[in-house]
């Protein structure tokens, strides 16, 4: 029987190992799997490479994972935002690596990781510093940069609903990077607001087919990052 549900956030992330590459969904707080990230902080794996569009806000979620010094390198398009303090501070001190990738290139590199495509050509970043050192090739007279696929050992993803097969649907712009990240990790771990019966999701409207998902955890009342940041909370709570 296919049953991908797990009992706790701790179980869901238990086997994440030092040095792993982790894809973390979300665009700002929308779609960010904050409970899974906090479980990873409790779990303690370090020397991680994290692929995520941003670097988190305040002292919770992804920012707290970075603050806990578990992340060796960030691969992202926009590492700073209104309330991001942790990453900028470490980066300025040279204590964390950054690979800056244009947002669309980041999305496509991850999709290619899931699609078995090792590399592709894109017009994005041609003639800019972000193309330096990369192969440039002309097609129909125009220059393109070759970019490589990104794969993760694990993906941490947030969805609205999930069934035990791992079929997922999302909520509005919380979809963002989550579906492509599901496809590109060896082990995709999902926190869903609602665990629903198999058959209750319309097959026409499933966004992530279960084949791309390995574990599903129900988190009925996920925390809101912006609320925690406004309240100046910090994870781990007892620090």
């Amino acid at each position, binding site marked *: *029987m*296919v049953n991908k549900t797990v009992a706790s956030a701790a179980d869901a992330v238990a086997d994440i190992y030092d040095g792993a590459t982790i894809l973390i969904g979300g665009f700002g707080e929308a779609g960010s799997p904050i409970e899974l990230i906090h479980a990873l902080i409790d779990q303690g794996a370090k020397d991680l490479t994290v692929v995520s569009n941003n670097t988190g806000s305040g002292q919770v979620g992804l920012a707290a994972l970075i603050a806990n010094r578990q992340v060796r390198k960030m691969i992202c398009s926009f590492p700073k935002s209104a309330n991001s303090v942790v990453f900028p501070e470490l980066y300025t001190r040279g204590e964390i690596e950054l690979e800056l990738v244009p947002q669309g290139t980041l999305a496509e590199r991850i*999709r290619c*990781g*899931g*699609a*078995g*495509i090792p590399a592709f050509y894109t017009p994005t970043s041609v003639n800019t510093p972000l193309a330096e050192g990369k192969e440039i090739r002309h097609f129909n007279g125009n220059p393109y940069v070759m970019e490589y696929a990104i794969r993760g050992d694990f993906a941490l993803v947030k969805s609205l609903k999930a*069934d035990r*097969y791992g*079929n997922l649907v999302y909520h509005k712009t919380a979809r963002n990077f989550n579906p492509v990240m599901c*496809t590109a990790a060896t082990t995709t771990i999902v926190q869903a607001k609602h665990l629903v019966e*198999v*058959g209750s*999701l319309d*097959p*026409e409207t*499933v966004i992530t*087919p*279960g*084949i*791309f998902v390995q574990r599903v955890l129900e988190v009925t009342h996920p925390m809101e990052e912006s609320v925690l940041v406004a309240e100046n909370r910090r994870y781990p709570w007892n620090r």
Partner: protein
Amino acid sequence: MAEVAQKVAADIPDASYVNLGIGIPEMVAGFVPEGRELIYHTENGLLGMGPTPVPGHEDPELINAGKKCVTAIPGASFFHHADSFMMIRGGHIDYCVLGAFQVSQEGDLANWSTGETNAIPAVGGAMDLVAGVKNIFVITQHTTKTGEPKIVQQCTYPLTGKQVVTRIYTNYAIIDIRDKKLYIRELAPGIEMEFLQQVTGAPLHQD
């Protein structure tokens, strides 16, 4: 070939994602052992393919890769062709069972063209499947209708993929392919080793 299809089904682990080729491979779906749940992928855009519909309930827009009417199980999903082949090429499908014109001792598969000059070449999704699916099983008659070996040292027909097949199920035997060699895994009832070697175009080994 029903008994052979049953052997294949028995070897596919619970909770696997499976793509079945057109023809004999389709029979495998009829023999899933009690208590096991397999999820069938059809490359034209359906995960969770169910059995043939009850007569009168066919939908010509709910079909499999062989363009036969099928059903969708609860928990199924529909998607477009590029997403479907992400599943295949991206290594997400666990098992694919395909037919064959020829299989070489190294696991090369030829199943899309006999290379005849006037034939219409047609490849479909076969090359994508062998390039992307984790385990490629072949189910086939052991010999051609005229008695020629289909398991050979080197394929003479155009290849679908090189070193891709890991196991062959025939009416005479189950044969594993490891380290570019054929290993007998099981003989069908009444089949002798010596006979099997006679109808096989490459050396057979035993562990």
